């Protein structure tokens, strides 16, 4: 079958001049008209370096990689916003891109007017918008405020309206950047559902996200970019596996405090070894620092999940204020959780931390952090070695053969 997208040797170079702004001042040019290399610091930076891959019709491709790996640049090139320095893209269908929700939204215009404005900027014809108008409003759930200026909308309403417009685009190829990172969990679910629907209808989606579980549910294939180069283009689970295993192992995760809002500002993972490597069966600790805007705030809840490389949760633990008083002090509160002997099997894992308030059901934070690796360190190896992906959890058990205890199966320490 002919591919719908052919990306051929795409390279994108940026010229970086240190701290200089990307636009120039006329004075700089006038004062030195013949010197093309101004400031002597004309460094070239390759945001993308010889990237090639092709996409079959109906395939959904995830694009993953660390910040600065070139994901957004690739999407910008595919959307036609910026040209590649070398190479080319052949597309056999219309590409619509959604790099931001609500591009072209204007606060002074009403909801109705913004639907038309945004829709036409996204490449919809007026009759298409007319056709989908009711469906868009229905999806967004803002029909009461249709003729209210956008500036009176809550940010959640704006987001729902924006996504509703984008969801009704009908291009052959849809390019989506990390637009789902905003919005509450319910909304995210709705968006993912819509995107799933789109991909099942035979259209192609290119999807960038840091949310690996979203990538793994939406896509079968993934492009893993590293420093502008294709590290691998493979099945999603293989690509994600490679990605998590190369992620920088920051055992400490720092988040800036949000004024007036409870915030987990620091998560530290205390593994048995350096470099976020943890030995099987050894004590594992999690330390949290939580910034509280005021004292005596009730009903707070902190919970932590451990996910495996396939984004399945394998471990969960929590502490609720209604059971055990926590986070009652203004300023920094410290909480520690420790597993005395964690029996997670070898593999790659990461944490997901939730901070919430149980009474009003406010979710303050939910984020992934602290990837770590469990290794069967100093354990007696079985005949065939410690194989990968055979289990998540391993514990002592005894085999009885013919009523007789034959073997105690346990990862014995050397």
């Amino acid at each position, binding site marked *: 079958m002919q591919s719908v997208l052919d990306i051929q040797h795409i390279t994108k170079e*940026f010229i970086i001049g240190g701290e200089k702004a990307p636009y120039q*001042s006329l*004075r700089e040019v006038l004062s030195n008209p013949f010197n093309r290399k101004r400031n002597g610091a004309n460094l070239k930076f390759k945001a993308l370096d010889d990237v090639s891959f092709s996409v079959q019709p109906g395939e959904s491709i995830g694009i993953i990689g660390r910040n600065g790996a070139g994901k957004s640049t690739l999407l910008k090139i595919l959307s036609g*916003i910026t040209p590649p320095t070398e190479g080319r893209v*052949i597309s056999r*269908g219309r590409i619509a891109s959604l790099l931001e929700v609500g591009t072209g939204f204007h606060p002074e215009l009403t909801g109705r007017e913004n639907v038309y404005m945004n829709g036409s900027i996204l490449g919809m014809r007026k009759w298409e918008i007319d056709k989908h108008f009711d469906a868009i409003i229905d999806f967004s759930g803002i029909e009461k405020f249709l003729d209210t200026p956008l500036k009176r909308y809550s940010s959640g309403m704006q987001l729902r309206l924006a996504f509703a417009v984008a969801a009704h685009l009908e291009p052959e190829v849809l390019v989506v950047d990390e637009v789902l990172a905003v919005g509450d969990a319910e909304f995210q679910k709705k968006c993912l559902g819509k995107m799933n629907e789109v991909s099942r209808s035979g259209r192609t989606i290119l999807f960038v996200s840091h949310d690996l579980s979203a990538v793994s549910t939406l896509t079968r294939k993934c492009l893993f970019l590293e420093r502008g180069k294709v590290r691998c283009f493979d099945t999603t689970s293989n690509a994600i596996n490679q990605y998590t295993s190369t992620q920088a192992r920051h055992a400490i995760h720092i988040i800036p405090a949000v004024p007036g809002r409870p915030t987990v500002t620091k998560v530290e993972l205390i593994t048995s070894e350096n470099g976020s490597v943890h030995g099987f069966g050894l004590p594992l600790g999690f330390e949290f620092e939580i910034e509280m805007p005021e004292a005596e705030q009730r009903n707070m809840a902190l919970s932590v999940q451990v996910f495996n490389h396939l984004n399945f949760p394998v471990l969960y633990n929590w502490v609720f204020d209604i059971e055990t008083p926590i986070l009652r002090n203004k300023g920094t509160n410290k909480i520690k959780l420790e597993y005395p002997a964690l029996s997670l099997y070898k593999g790659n894992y990461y944490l997901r931390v939730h901070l919430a308030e149980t009474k009003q059901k406010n979710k303050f934070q939910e984020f992934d952090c602290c990837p770590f690796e469990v290794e069967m360190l100093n354990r007696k190896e079985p005949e065939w070695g410690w194989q990968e992906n055979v289990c998540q959890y391993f514990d002592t058990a005894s085999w009885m053969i013919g009523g007789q205890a034959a073997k105690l199966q346990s990862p014995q320490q050397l």
Partner: protein
Amino acid sequence: MSTEYIIERQHRFSLGLKELIRYRELFYFFTWRDIKVKYKQAALGFLWAVLQPLLMMMIFTLIFSRGLNVHSEGIPYPVFALSGLVIWNIFSSGLLNSANSMVTNANIIKKIYFPRLIIPMSAILTALFDFCFALVVYIGVILYYGHHTDWLRVFYSLPISIILTVLTTFGLGTFLAALNVKYRDFQYVIPFMIQFLLFVNPVLYSSKIFDHGWLVWVMKLNPLANAINISRGAFTGMPVDWEGVGLSFMVAMLIFFIGIYTFRKTEAYFADLA
């Protein structure tokens, strides 16, 4: 399979007309947005579009006619000033809007692709919309003064004036819009430029004061001066200087193409620079 699109570095120059036609509805939406936003928060709304030329006319009449006793080719000075101002306003607000349009719409440019020319073009369409209101004032003032008017001449001279003005405005506007993305200095240069040009063009005074050899030629080549003279002639009875119209039309076309050429050459990198 549907059409093939190729995304790569542009080596050859093209106007991209096909694309502009495909995205034609965006002209309407951008213009419509700018007009809506411009008048939405104002209590007087569209009345401003009428008041603005009226107030300008009154101020200039006060200063130039009463104060300085400027020669107005034998017609009432308010009619004289307004005949220049309606044309001048297309140019000044069109130029200001279009030259800044790429910077003000930078957030859109960085996130979505569409032919970039639509933005400065819509900015000028917005100025033309205001012109329609000014025209009402203009006709009202003419009728009020009851001056002898060659209406047939108004009918054919106004479109010629508008074409000359729009071509010039568009050329200069796109040229400056492209430079503005790269060199933000132009944000400060443009208002000065417009002020300067107001006094260089025969908006508030008669072009007859230029009677020296080379100055006459400058006026003949100047599309704005010709645009003003030709529409003003319907009242003053000054014959149409067809030679000047022809020459300045060529100048206007030249400005138009230089503007579009510069814009098209640099537009691919707007998203990187903005």
